[in-house]
Structure formats: structure tokens, C-alpha cells
């Protein structure tokens, strides 16, 4: 039963959060102890960020209760949370880049004390800021502008600000994902220091190894449900990853069809030591090399933040490449934009369908013909409704898109059908090299199976497929070869023969980021 012990500073009971069309959290019970670093891990979309955003007042829960030190509270907005001593350190820095560090810290104070028009004496401000920066071991001039700071320093300034707000409970939403391992180490030292001073922290990460470096307890969320909570000393990385990935889905995977023995004569796509620019955001790829042959599915497996999305985007010129070569059919290619990529027959199907894949206020038919509309129109200009309808109709039929009306708005389709529209669009371009980024993410199980079968059958028709996925089972079920990627580097490449799930999982988790 749910008991409140004196040492529990924060707890939730049956937290449900519904967004239009999605239930992000399905009744989560969570608790945080005094002087504890409680790590929350889970796959993309598991509900980690939603949980801390509810705790810190960014979202209000649809249902459920929150208790602070045993007292039931209502957190309606960020101000409410701050008054209760709960602060969120955001994934993206929420500092004002053009103000100084001291001013940013002062902003937080005004927010809490409600003294918008308080007169700030510069000297006092600087003194104050210096004190808080000391606490996070940041030796920088408080007068320096935030825009000149590195990502790691910005994280620390955010934490300093949280302390300035008198927060006892600090939620950190993936603070380490933009950091180098050195910067992360500094962050961990600060966190440990704060813990000793009696602060409690909820620490979200997707790097399991970090849980075992810093956290006291770990909670695993999967699809909006809490599946596991344990003291870190009583569990192992393997167990945590197993819970993250889930097991019961296995039975739904189509039996692996052994590809007709591939004749690997000449690669259709050859990537040689691809290195991308580090722009502060995302992962920097370093020296990634691989080949993909006609009819082959290359599974690129990596957890969130491994660099697989960056790899996909780099292949179509949407991520800046600083060195390395790409060869298509043996010819060296210059790919500066998706336009260049499409000319070479490479198409990237993004992970975030709604933001990067579809124009949701347009119809199914409009979205499918979009890349080709100059070709389907007479004299490249006048659209041919008949032609467009028949193209859309053909894909709707062969991919079984529901509803089957080509003039149906994409915004109102389910996730699975939206994904089918993006795939239809990519196939209609005639591209032979498809880069699929998490193609079944956030899709209901039935459609998931359909899409996987489709990917397999595309390969047997001769398409070359780069399957970027964090789903170990998906990679095992579909790939001919598997490439493991972590922190922007390829750590393993192997034939998908007699590979066990356990071994693959341990490769993902064994990596130290």
C-alpha cells in the first residue's frame, strides 16, 4: 500500500496525463526520498519528461495526486512548483542567452519573489551570483553573457539558478545528453555535493551507465507505465535495460525471414569515416563507415543520443558533414541537401513524422505526391487531379492506409497510418536507398507488424535499407547485418546470425558514453 514515510519528500499517486490522441502517463506512482538522486529512465516516449514536467508545474496532470512532505498539493503552474521548492532544469537551456549569468540568476529570483520592479544593485547581484556559482563549482565571471558559455556551463548555471530559487527538489531532464563525458563528470560531482547538502534530485537520462555512476535509486518507465523501481545497489544495467525495452512484444514480431543469400558484390551505398560538425546540439558523429548492398537491411542500433538520427540526417545532407565520403553505386557523391540526396535515390524517413515528415493540414494525396508534383503536373505546373488520385489510390491500397479516401486530412490519421503516408511518399519518389529512423515508434502493435513486413518485402524487391532503431527486437527481426552505434561511433558490426537478444542488449548497455 501507499505509505508516507517521513523521509519521502515528494510522491505521486496514480498520475495520468492525456494529450490529444495520446496517453503519456497511465497512472504512475513515484516517490523521492530526502537526499536522494532518483534516476528515471525509459525509451523515447516512455513518459519521463512528462513526469518531471508535471512535478514542476509545466503540465497539469489529467488525474492523480501529488504529495510534498506528506501533504497533498496542487501544482497548477511553474510558480506553484517553485513555491513548494521544486524546480526543473530543462532539457534545452531556458536561460536568456543575451543576458549575463548574474542577470539570469536574478531573473529567477524576481520570478519567485514577485518583485518584477525590484531595483537591483549591480554589485549585490554579482555578489549573489558568485555565491551560487561557487556552489556549483563554476568559476566564471558572473558578468559574462550566457551565449558565450558552453553547454555544460549552461547546465550548471541552470542548477545554480535552481538553488537560488531555494529549491530542495531539483528535477533534471536529460542534463547529460548534450555534455561530453568530462562535463558530465563535473555535473555529477556537483549533484553529489548537493545531495550531501540535503537536496533531492530526480535525474532523467537515457544512458543507463550514468544511473550506476550517480543515482541511489532507479525507476523505469515504459509506454507511460512504471515497470520497475529498485535501489541501484540491488540491480544491474542489464536488468534495467531489459525493463526499458520490454519483453512481451516479442511474440508479435514476424518470424525472421532469412534473406535470399545476398550477393554482396558491389555496395549501393558506401560511407567512409563520416564525421559531422558538433554544433552544441545533438551528437557528433566520428568516423562512421559502413556499406549497404542492394536488397540488404542494415540495422543501425543505438539508444537515444547514440547519434543514429544524426547519421540519418547526415546521409541526406541535413546535418553538416566535416569529413568523410559517401559513394553511391561506386561513384563519389556530394550531398549538400535532401534535394541532392533524392537525385541519387536516397530518401530519409524521419523519426518525428509530424514535425519533419508530413504537412498535416494537407491531404493524404497531397502529401504523397509532394516530392514529385512537378513531374505529375502537366508542363510541370498544372496539377492533374486524376493522376494524383490514382497514385495516392495505389499506395492507399497496397499499404492499406485507413481511411482510404485520398482527400482525407493527414492530421486526423492515426500514427501508424501517418507513417504509411510518409513511406508511400518516399517510395513514390523512386528512391532506392531508404533511411528509416525509428519507423515503428509510437505506432500501435498491429500496424507495427504491418510496417515491419513491408520493410522486409521492400528489401526483397531490391531496395537498400538503413534501419535506424533503438528497438533491439526490431533490429533482430529485420536486419541482415547489425551495426551498433554509441556516442557517435560505431562500436560493433556483425552479421545477424544466431545473435541473441541478450548479447545485443549488453552491447548497448556496456558502452560507457
Amino acid at each position, binding site marked *: 500500500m501507499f505509505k508516507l514515510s517521513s523521509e519521502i519528500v515528494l510522491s505521486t499517486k496514480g498520475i495520468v496525463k492525456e494529450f490529444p490522441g495520446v496517453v503519456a502517463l497511465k497512472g504512475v506512482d513515484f516517490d523521492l526520498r530526502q537526499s536522494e538522486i532518483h534516476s528515471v529512465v525509459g525509451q523515447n516516449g516512455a513518459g519521463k519528461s512528462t513526469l518531471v514536467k508535471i512535478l514542476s508545474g509545466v503540465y497539469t496532470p489529467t488525474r492523480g495526486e501529488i504529495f510534498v512532505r506528506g501533504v497533498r498539493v496542487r501544482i497548477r503552474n511553474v510558480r506553484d512548483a517553485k513555491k513548494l521548492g521544486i524546480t526543473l532544469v530543462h532539457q534545452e537551456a531556458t536561460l536568456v542567452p543575451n543576458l549575463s549569468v548574474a542577470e539570469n540568476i536574478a531573473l529567477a529570483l524576481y520570478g519567485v519573489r514577485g518583485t518584477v520592479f525590484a531595483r537591483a544593485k549591480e554589485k549585490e547581484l554579482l555578489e549573489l551570483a558568485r555565491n551560487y556559482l561557487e556552489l556549483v563549482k563554476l568559476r566564471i565571471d558572473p558578468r559574462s553573457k550566457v551565449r558565450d558559455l558552453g553547454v555544460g556551463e549552461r547546465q550548471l548555471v541552470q542548477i545554480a539558478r535552481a538553488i537560488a530559487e531555494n529549491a530542495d527538489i531539483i528535477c533534471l531532464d536529460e542534463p547529460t545528453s548534450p555534455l561530453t563525458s568530462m562535463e558530465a563528470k563535473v555535473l555529477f560531482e556537483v549533484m553529489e555535493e548537493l545531495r550531501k547538502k540535503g537536496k533531492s534530485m530526480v535525474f532523467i537520462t537515457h544512458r543507463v551507465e550514468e544511473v550506476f555512476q550517480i543515482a541511489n535509486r532507479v525507476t523505469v518507465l515504459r509506454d507511460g507505465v512504471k515497470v520497475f523501481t529498485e535501489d541501484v545497489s540491488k540491480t544491474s544495467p542489464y536488468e534495467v535495460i531489459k525493463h526499458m525495452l520490454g519483453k512481451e512484444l516479442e511474440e508479435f514480431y514476424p518470424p525472421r525471414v532469412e534473406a535470399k543469400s545476398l550477393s554482396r558484390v558491389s555496395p549501393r551505398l558506401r560511407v567512409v569515416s563520416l564525421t559531422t560538425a558538433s554544433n552544441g546540439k545533438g551528437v557528433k558523429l566520428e568516423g562512421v563507415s559502413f556499406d549497404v548492398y542492394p536488397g540488404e537491411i542494415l540495422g543501425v542500433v543505438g539508444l537515444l543520443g547514440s547519434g543514429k538520427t544524426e547519421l540519418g540526417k547526415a546521409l*541526406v545532407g*541535413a546535418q553538416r558533414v566535416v569529413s568523410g565520403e559517401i559513394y553511391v553505386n561506386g561513384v563519389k557523391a556530394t550531398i549538400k*541537401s*535532401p*534535394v541532392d*540526396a*533524392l*537525385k541519387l535515390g536516397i*530518401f*530519409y524517413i*524521419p523519426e518525428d513524422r509530424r*514535425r*519533419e*515528415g*508530413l*504537412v*498535416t*493540414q*494537407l491531404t493524404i494525396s*497531397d502529401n504523397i*505526391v*509532394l*516530392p514529385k*508534383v*512537378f513531374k*505529375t*503536373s502537366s508542363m*510541370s*505546373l*498544372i*496539377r492533374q487531379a486524376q493522376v494524383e488520385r490514382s497514385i495516392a489510390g495505389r499506395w492507399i491500397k497496397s499499404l492499406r492506409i485507413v481511411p482510404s479516401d485520398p482527400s482525407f486530412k493527414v492530421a486526423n490519421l492515426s500514427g501508424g497510418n501517418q507513417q504509411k503516408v510518409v513511406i508511400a*511518399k518516399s517510395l513514390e*519518389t523512386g528512391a532506392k536507398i531508404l533511411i528509416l529512423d525509428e519507423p515503428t515508434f509510437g505506432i500501435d502493435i498491429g500496424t507495427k507488424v504491418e510496417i515491419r513486413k513491408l520493410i522486409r518485402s521492400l528489401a526483397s524487391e531490391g531496395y537498400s535499407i538503413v534501419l535506424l532503431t533503438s528497438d533491439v527486437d526490431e533490429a533482430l527481426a529485420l536486419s541482415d547485418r547489425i551495426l551498433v552505434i554509441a556516442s557517435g561511433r560505431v562500436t560493433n558490426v556483425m552479421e545477424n546470425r544466431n545473435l541473441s537478444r541478450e548479447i545485443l542488449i549488453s552491447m548497448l548497455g556496456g558502452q560507457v558514453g
Partner: protein
Amino acid sequence: MVSTPRNLREILGAVTKYELGGPLLALALLVAASSALSPRFLEPYNQRILLLQTAPLALIALGESMIILMGSIDLSPGSTMALAGVVSAAAFRVYGFQLHASLAIGALVGLAVGAVNGLLVTKARIPSFVATLASLVAGRGLVLVLTEGQPIVGLSQYRVLTIELVGVPVMVWLFILFGAINYVLLKRTSVGLLTYAIGGNEEAVRYSGVRVDIVKLVNFSLAGGYYAIAGLMMNARLEVAYPWTGWGYELDAIASCVLGGIMLSGGVGNPLGPVVGAYMLTLLTNVLILLGVNPYLQWVVKGVVLVTAAVALTRGVRYVK
């Protein structure tokens, strides 16, 4: 609205479901109110003037709407129409070109200014607001340099645009024609689909391997051409090319789009909306004049109407920037 009978609410709901339903409903209400308030409003003479006044505004609103549908903004219409009008008048009066050549030169000037805007946005990667703000300022400057601030008179031959054809001035036929062209362009051509798509989600269009920049360049250029035609219409209506023609018209163009149901966030709106919006905006001024309202107050009334339209449009939108 709680006491509104169910039937009326359902009718309202059905009407506003169509993109053009809201603006047309507002227009019907405005016409009804205007004819009730001023008996002279519906007189053919007044309607003729109203349509003549609407024509240039309708043209620049049509041009502006192509840009707004792409999710960009164009502040250059007023200056572009003045520049096109002045250059055309100078070609005709000073350099002795034939009338039709002078008209063509004016149109080309508009296309050129639009193309420069398009290049600034796509090649120099300047936000459209800033790029077209520069055109607004520099364009007006060019007009003043060319004319030395003096009007170019003696354009009576431009009357070809105001003479009547089947009982309606040519100018009015022109705006009907261009309304139809814009409708076909946006709803029935590849460029139109991509215009809506870029306004809806530029990122997705780029990942689809489409040359987004070319579409932008085409739209900015065409819009410039539309502004130029509006400038030529002003020459015809006044028979003089004033250097201050079109001063502040960019705002009327944007207002017409908003009144016509074009979402400023891009990607949503009927191609004919701006024409309806331009007519409403002109009508409003017309009625306020007929009623003898203080001319300064007319600006305030326009502002209030614009806010009302914007509120009706942005219902349900969480954040507006």
C-alpha cells in the same frame, strides 16, 4: 452566445466550416448593416466607386496572400506599387514609350523587386520581414530619387484601365481576372501545393527533397508583379503618378489577408479570401465617409475590426508570436 437558438448556431457552425465561410458571412453582415445605416450605400454610383477603390488593394492583397500562405511576410507592396507606377509613367511621359510598352515596363519593375526580395530571403538567408522592410525603405527612396518628389502628370491615356467594358470598369475586370488566376495558381498547380505545404511545414517539404527556394523565389516575384499592376491602376485612377502612392498600403494588404481568413502562421486560407478582405476594408472606409465619421476615428474603427477578425481566426491557437 448561450441564448442563441440551436438552429442559428448550427447554421453558423456549418458556414464557418468552409475556409471562405467566415469572411463571406462577415461581408454579408457588413453590407446589410451599411445599407441599413446609409441609403446611399447601395446606389450604383457608390458601388462603382467602391469597386474602383478596391481594385488596387485587392491586387496587392492577392500578392501578399501568396507570401503569407508560405509562412513569410512581405512589407514591400506599397513601395513596389509606387516604383512600378512611377517608372511606367516616366517611360511613357519622359522617354516616349508607347502606352502598352510602358505598362509592361511597370509590370517588369514589380517582378524585379519581387525577385530581389526572393533572392534576399533564399540566398542571403534574411528573414522575409527584414528583407522586405529593406525593400519598403529603399523602394520608396528610389521613387523619390527618380521623381525628385514631384508627381508625373498627364497620364490621361492610362484611362484604358478605367473605361467600362460591359458596364464594368476594366480595372474591376482585372481584379476579377487576377482573383481567378490566383485561385487556379494556388489550388490547381504544383507551385500552389508547395506554397501551402511550405507554409504548413517547411521542414517536411525540405526533407522531401523539394527545391523550396525556387518556390519562394517564384512566389515573391509573382507577388511583386501583382503589386506593380496595382501601381498601374493607381496611375489610371488618378491620371497622375504620385511619389507617395501606396504609402502604408502594406499594412492594408496584410489586414485584407487577415480579414479574408488567411492565417498569418502560414498554410491555411482560401485564395479568394484576400479579395473579400480587401472589399470589406474598402467598404468600411466608404461607409464611415458616407456617415460623416471623423476621418481620424476611421483608423481606430479599422483597428478594432482587425483585432476582431484576428481573434476569430486565432481561436484555439495556443501561442502566437
